[in-house]
C-alpha cells in the first residue's frame, strides 16, 4: 500500500487514454467558446486529435506485455492493436459526423464518442474482472446515449431505449457470471483465475454456468445469435455515424473482452467451446439469411454485421495463435470496411435519397467516385480478392481448418456465398439500375472524401499487402498464449 513501486512508465502505457480524456475536455470547452458558424471545427478537431493520439501511441506506448497498475490492465500487443483500431474508428466516426444534421455541431456528441473510445480501450486492456466490468459499462452508457442522441426523432429515441434495455439486462446477467467467477476462485485477476481453474478444484457446473452468463453479456456486445435481436432496430434508428461506430468499434471491443475472459481467464475451454462453435455456425447462417430479405440499407448492414461477428467467432473457436490472430485481423478489416460502407450510406441519406436500397439506383452515373467507394467496401465485405475482406475470411477459414473444424469452415464458405449474393444485389442497383428522373450528383464534403479515401486505401492495402498486418496480429496472439 505505497507508491514506492510505481513506475512512471506505466503512465506512458495509458497515454492514449489520458489523451482521449483531455481531448474530450478540449472539445467540450470549444463547444462553449466557438461561434455557432464555426462548430464544424468540433468534429474535425476530434478526428485530427484521434489521429495524433494514434501516432503518439505508436511512438510512446509500445506494449511490453506486462501486467501493470496493480494487475488491473495488461499492457500487451493484443490490447495495443485493439486500442489503435478503436481510436481510429472514433476519429473516422467524428469525421463522418461533421455534416450530419442533429449531431454535427454538438460538442457533447463528440465528447461522448471519445468517452466510449476510452471505455473500449480499457475493455481491451482489462486483466481484472472489476476493470473489465467498469469498462464495459462505460462503453455501454456512452453507446446508449449516442444511439438515442437525436431523441426528437422517435426512431432514434426508440433505438436508444432498446439498446439501453437490452444492454442493462445483459450486463446484469454478465455481472452474475463475473460474481460467480469471483465466488468460486476468490480472485478478480484473470490470470489468477486461470491458475485456480488449472488446479482442478472447481466443478464443471460452475465453470459452465459462469461461462454462459458472461457469454450473454459479451454476446450482446458483439451481436451474435441469439443475442442479436436489438441490432437491426438500433442500427436503423440510431444516427448513421453512430450506427457505423456501434457496429464496428463496439463489436470489436466485445471480441476483445471475449479473448480476455475466455482465453486468459476461463481456460477450461472443453466445457464452453461446443457452445461457442454452435453459436458461430448459427450466427453466420441466420445473419446472412435474414439479410437477404432486407430493403433498407442500414438493416441490411445490421444483419450482415451479425454474420461478420459469426465469421470472427469461427476463427476464435479455433483457440489457437492462428485463430486469435485471424480474429484480430478479421476485425481490423471489418472495422475499416464497414466504416467505409456507412460513410457512403451517410452521404446518400444526406442527399435526400433516403435509406432504402431502391434510392441507390443509378448511383454510378450520378456520383461515380462514391459508387466506386461503395463497390470497394461491399466487395470487401463479400470477401472478394484482392480486397482486405478476402484475406480476412481466408485466415479465418484456415484457422478453423487447422483446428479440425472443417465442417464449420464449410458452413462459413457457404455463408460467404449467400453474403456475396446480397452484396451484389445492392451493387447491381448502384451500377445497373437507371437513376431516378432528375437525380443530381451526391454532394461529398471534403471531410467525407478524405475519410472515404483513407478507408478505401486501407481496404486495398490490407488486401494486397496483407501479410505484414497479419504478422502483426500473429505476434499479438503469441503474447497471450
Amino acid at each position, binding site marked *: 500500500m505505497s507508491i514506492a513501486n510505481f513506475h512512471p512508465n506505466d503512465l506512458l502505457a*495509458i497515454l492514449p487514454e489520458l489523451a482521449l480524456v483531455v481531448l474530450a475536455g478540449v472539445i467540450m470547452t470549444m463547444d462553449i467558446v466557438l461561434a455557432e458558424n464555426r462548430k464544424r471545427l468540433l468534429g474535425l478537431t476530434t478526428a485530427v486529435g484521434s489521429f495524433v493520439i494514434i501516432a503518439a501511441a505508436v511512438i510512446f506506448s509500445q506494449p511490453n506485455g506486462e501486467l501493470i*497498475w496493480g494487475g488491473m490492465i495488461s499492457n500487451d500487443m493484443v490490447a495495443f492493436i485493439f486500442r489503435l483500431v478503436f481510436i481510429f474508428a472514433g476519429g473516422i466516426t467524428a469525421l463522418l459526423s461533421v455534416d450530419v444534421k442533429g449531431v454535427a455541431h454538438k460538442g*457533447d456528441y463528440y465528447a*461522448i464518442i471519445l468517452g466510449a473510445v476510452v471505455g473500449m480501450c480499457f475493455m481491451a486492456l482489462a486483466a481484472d474482472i472489476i476493470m473489465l466490468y467498469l469498462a464495459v459499462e*462505460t462503453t455501454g*452508457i456512452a453507446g446508449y446515449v449516442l444511439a438515442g442522441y437525436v*431523441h426528437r426523432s422517435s426512431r432514434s429515441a426508440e433505438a436508444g431505449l432498446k439498446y439501453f434495455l437490452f444492454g442493462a439486462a445483459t450486463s446484469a446477467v454478465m455481472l452474475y457470471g463475473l460474481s460467480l467467477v469471483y465466488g468460486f*476462485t*476468490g480472485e478478480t485477476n484473470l490470470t489468477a483465475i486461470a491458475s485456480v481453474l488449472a488446479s482442478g478444484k472447481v466443478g464443471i457446473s460452475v465453470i459452465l*454456468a459462469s461461462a454462459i452468463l458472461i457469454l450473454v453479456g459479451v454476446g450482446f456486445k458483439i451481436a451474435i445469435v441469439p443475442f442479436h435481436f436489438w441490432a437491426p432496430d438500433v442500427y436503423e434508428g440510431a444516427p448513421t455515424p453512430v450506427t457505423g461506430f456501434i457496429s464496428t468499434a463496439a463489436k470489436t471491443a466485445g471480441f476483445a473482452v471475449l479473448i480476455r475472459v475466455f482465453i486468459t481467464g476461463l481456460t477450461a475451454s472443453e466445457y464452453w467451446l461446443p457452445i461457442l462453435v454452435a453459436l458461430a455456425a448459427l450466427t453466420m447462417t441466420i445473419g446472412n439469411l435474414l439479410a437477404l430479405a432486407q430493403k433498407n440499407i442500414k438493416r441490411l448492414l445490421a444483419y450482415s454485421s451479425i454474420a461478420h461477428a459469426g465469421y470472427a467467432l469461427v476463427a476464435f473457436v479455433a483457440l489457437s495463435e492462428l485463430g486469435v490472430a485471424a480474429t484480430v485481423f478479421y476485425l481490423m478489416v471489418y472495422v475499416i470496411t464497414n466504416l467505409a460502407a456507412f460513410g457512403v450510406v451517410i452521404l446518400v441519406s444526406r442527399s435526400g435519397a433516403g435509406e432504402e436500397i431502391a434510392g441507390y439506383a443509378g448511383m454510378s452515373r450520378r456520383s461515380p467516385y462514391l459508387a466506386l467507394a461503395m463497390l470497394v467496401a461491399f466487395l470487401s465485405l463479400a470477401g472478394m480478392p484482392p480486397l482486405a475482406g478476402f484475406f480476412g475470411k481466408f485466415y479465418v477459414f484456415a484457422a478453423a481448418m487447422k483446428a479440425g473444424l472443417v465442417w464449420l469452415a464449410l458452413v462459413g464458405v457457404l455463408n460467404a456465398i449467400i453474403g456475396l449474393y446480397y452484396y451484389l444485389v445492392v451493387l447491381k442497383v448502384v451500377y445497373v439500375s437507371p437513376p431516378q428522373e432528375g437525380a443530381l450528383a451526391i454532394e461529398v464534403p471534403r471531410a467525407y472524401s478524405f475519410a472515404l479515401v483513407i478507408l478505401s486505401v486501407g481496404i486495398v492495402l490490407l488486401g494486397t499487402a496483407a501479410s505484414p498486418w497479419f504478422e502483426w496480429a500473429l505476434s499479438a496472439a503469441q503474447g497471450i498464449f
Partner: protein
Amino acid sequence: MEAVSAAQIIFIVVALLTVATTFLVVTVRNLIHAALWLVATLFGIAVIFVLLDAGFMATVQIVLYIGAIAILIVFAVMLTRRVMQDVGPQSNENWWLGTIVAAVFFAAISTLLWSIRWPALPGAVVGDTVLALGRSLVDPNQYVIPFEVASVMLIIALIGSITLALPGKQSE
C-alpha cells in the same frame, strides 16, 4: 446440518423482504408508491451490507441511494407528472414467456448455488476499513485505474443525461 445462527436468520428475513419490495416496485401502479418501495429495497440492501461487515458501504447505500437518489426520484415524479397513476397495461402478450425464462433462470442459478461447496474467501479487512478502502482507491498498485474509469463513466452519464433531458432548439 449446522445450527442456524442469528445472522443467518436476519439475512433470510431481510433478503425475503428485499425481494418482496423489489417485486412491488415494478408492480404497483402509483409511481410514488413504487418510489417508496424502492426506498425499502435499498434499505434491505444496506442491511445486507451490514451483515457482510461492510459498514461504510451500508452508510453510502443509505445516504446516497435512499437519501439522494430515491428522494430525487420522488421529487422528479411529483414535479413532472400530474397523473401519479400509471395507465395502460403493465405487460404484453409475451408475459408468460418472460415468466418461464425467469423461472428457469432462477431454478438453474439456485440449483447451482446449492450444489457448490464454496471456498473460504479472504476475511474482512481488520482495522479501519474506510481508511483501507480510501487508500486502495488511490493506490496505483490497486484500484486507481478502475476508480478513474468510473469517473469517466459518470461524467459520460452526466453529460448524456443532460443532453437527453434538455429541450431541443427549434432549428433542429
